[in-house]
């Protein structure tokens, strides 16, 4: 399983765009990049997943450069409710079985 590195914490203000970058230098060919969000005392919640280029959904965008050694989660116009821990995970989700290895994540604090 590829190791990931992401900032321990970030601060932002309401209405700003937040970009959290994750490094995964040893990503394998079959690996996808998945981001989860976790609020205190709740289970991790899937945000977005991608393999290459750009993926966008109603919550976030995920930018993956051609070499796939890093990825950037972009949260547009954050609000106070986006204060959470964000985890970047790398692994092969195809075939069903996919044990997740969580790092420390990035603790995002959104201020008024």
């Amino acid at each position, binding site marked *: 399983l590829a190791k990931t590195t992401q900032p321990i914490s970030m601060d932002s203000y309401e209405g700003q765009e937040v970009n959290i970058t994750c490094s995964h230098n040893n990503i394998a060919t079959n690996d996808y990049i998945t981001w989860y969000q976790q609020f205190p*005392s*709740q*289970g*991790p919640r*899937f945000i977005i997943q991608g393999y290459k280029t750009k993926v966008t959904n109603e919550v976030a965008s995920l930018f993956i450069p051609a070499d796939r050694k890093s990825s950037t989660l972009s949260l547009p116009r954050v609000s106070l409710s986006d204060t959470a821990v964000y985890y970047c995970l790398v692994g092969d*989700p195809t075939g069903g079985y*996919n*044990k*997740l290895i969580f*790092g420390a994540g990035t603790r995002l604090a959104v201020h008024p």
Partner: protein
Amino acid sequence: EPEVTQTPSHQVTQMGQEVILRCVPISNHLYFYWYRQILGQKVEFLVSFYNNEISEKSEIFDDQFSVERPDGSNFTLKIRSTKLEDSAMYFCANDGTDTQYFGPGTRLTVL
């Protein structure tokens, strides 16, 4: 989003007692997982379960732990003799088509 449910939301027990944590996974999803998160620490993988047997377990998942699907739908985690260090949030997870869905967790407090 598909929903995994867990009961109880909070369990308080005395050291040495047995606890059973319950999960109702998403129907037709075949892989089941338990994770735990000690307060302030990372989410840690405990065990995965497929086709009515353990497919992988971590070093945390020792002989005090067991999992089963007692009735083909519910998925349980049993801790036979709880220790203080078992106090944590326990999350059940279930595989979707391309990711895992987590339940809300059970907070286990061992006194």
